[in-house]
């Protein structure tokens, strides 16, 4: 079966279907627009990085990257912190109460984020959080908490209860038991939630589109959308921006493939 040429052919073809569009995007960033129209799919004439230079000079691209980093890092941090605390409380509460709390948070998984966009926009408007990164961070936390609670609670439930009891008998406070025992032992599930939260928030378009209006606060995906209007058919410039915004996650993916794959698959519902 391993040497089956038919199998190799199928996998090879699909591999190319994945790889060719992405390579074309990368190659295009080294072309000028006239060059692209005369030679759309060939190798570029030279490896000129003029497009990247222009992009970095004319657009506040580092500002966008900074905004994306701020939104993503803070959202991920708080999602992990809050959902692990909730998970801990759920497994420690009396069973019935625990179930109710669990149900309250987890039922949010069914609600599509688009349903909330109007009320969330109105609320943010009232609170003066439109056009602020804080607003996007808060919404991102709120819509990723349900799945975070779902995954971390599922994991914490499997930890031996005796550990917590033993610590409690030794006089440890709830906070100590949570931070020193429950949190440390839940690292695998935290990694899962951390990775998909990071990727989803980094790539999210919906809430930045609703909330971030001025250039100083825009994140990468929404800046990309602006570029599309601005550069219209200037694919080389547009794709230089696409490459710059995708590179951080792709590099991380090369080194942490296994974690990314299991993390993103657990978060597939969002």
């Amino acid at each position, binding site marked *: 079966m391993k040497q089956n040429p038919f199998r190799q052919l199928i996998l090879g073809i699909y591999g190319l279907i994945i790889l060719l569009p992405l390579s074309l995007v990368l190659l295009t960033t080294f072309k000028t627009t006239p060059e692209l129209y005369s030679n759309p799919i060939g190798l570029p004439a030279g490896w000129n990085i003029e497009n990247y230079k222009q992009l970095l000079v004319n657009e506040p691209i580092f500002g966008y990257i900074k905004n994306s980093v701020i939104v993503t890092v803070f959202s991920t941090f708080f999602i992990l912190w809050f959902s692990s605390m909730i998970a801990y409380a759920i497994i420690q509460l009396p069973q019935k109460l625990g179930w109710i709390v669990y149900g309250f948070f987890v039922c949010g998984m069914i609600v599509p984020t688009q349903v909330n966009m109007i009320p969330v926009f109105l609320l943010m408007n009232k609170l003066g959080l439109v056009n602020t990164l804080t607003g996007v961070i808060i919404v991102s936390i709120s819509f990723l908490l*349900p799945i975070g609670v779902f995954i971390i609670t599922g994991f914490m439930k499997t930890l031996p209860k005796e550990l917590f009891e033993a610590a409690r008998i030794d006089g440890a406070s709830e906070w100590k038991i949570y931070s020193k025992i429950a949190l440390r032992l839940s690292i695998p599930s935290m990694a899962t939630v951390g990775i998909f939260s990071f990727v989803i928030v980094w790539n999210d378009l919906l809430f930045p589109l609703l909330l971030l209006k001025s250039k100083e606060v825009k994140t990468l995906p929404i800046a990309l959308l602006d570029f599309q209007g601005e550069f219209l058919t200037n694919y080389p410039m547009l*794709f230089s921006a696409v490459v710059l915004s*995708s590179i951080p996650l792709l590099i991380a993916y090369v080194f942490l493939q296994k974690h990314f794959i299991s993390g993103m698959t657990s978060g597939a519902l969002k």
Partner: protein
Amino acid sequence: MSLKTNTSIQEEEKRTPSFSFPLFSFKSISKSRHLWLFLLPGFIIYTVFFALPTLSALFLSTTDWNGLSSQFSFVGFQNFKEILTNDAIFTQSLTNNLKFTIGVLIFQTLLSLGFALLLYKNSAWNTFYRSLFFVPTIISSVSIAFTWNFMYDPNIGGVNLFLSKIGLEHWTQSWIGNGHIAIYSLAFVQFWAHTGQMLIIFVAGIQAIPSELYEAASIDGATRWQKFKRITWPLLAPATTMVVAYTTIQSFKAFDLIIAMTNGGPSNSTEILSTLLYHEAFINFRFGYASAISVVFMIVIALLTFLQFRVLRLTKM
């Protein structure tokens, strides 16, 4: 749980004599009070910015509010009536939703299962292919959208150039400019972006099947097809249901991809419910009406989820 609490209370009593009733101790109350503090930050954010907004979408859906004026009136079920009886674009969007979802569902499920059957063993090459097919999952929908806008470009796009090269010039066309096929062109991109992810669910499912079953079947002289039909397929049912459920919900909620590729055009031919409600609210400023669409959208998703769970239960038997 309560049993455990009791033992800890008993331990406590041994050390320091104290007054506590066996079922209702002060200790357990103060303990749970402490736990509420753990719930508090997440609870506030989730309630204020997620649960209450969801409920207020229900409220807004019964108004004619335009999002700007301070005055609006209640119109009862008028919005819903209009949506369901007198809104051609809504009907078209729902139809597009179905075309998109069914298209993605069929191809994504079959192909990810097929690839999983080819790639389930953990050899170096298989791991390489799995990682490669997974790459689009890491890339933002906006970037993927631009990549495929370029591929679909009628003049310099890779798709048409490829078709001309292999002698299929008459197949070349404007893939997302032609309203008759645009929604399927978008469905292909959704498929391209998520097949690698579903493949992983199937691989995990296949790897969980005990190899003794296959060995026993081999001894009995079963063919490869028989093994698939009698062992793999039935035991893979939970994974299949998961893939079907994920794919349905994911593609039903697609938003970023469509906004960035066609923004619903040409002439609403790629408008789906999520983009329609965005356009109604933030382009046409019909907040009340858009909220009603979002409520219908939520009901459809809830129904789909419910159906998937029913199927899950049936296949588990």
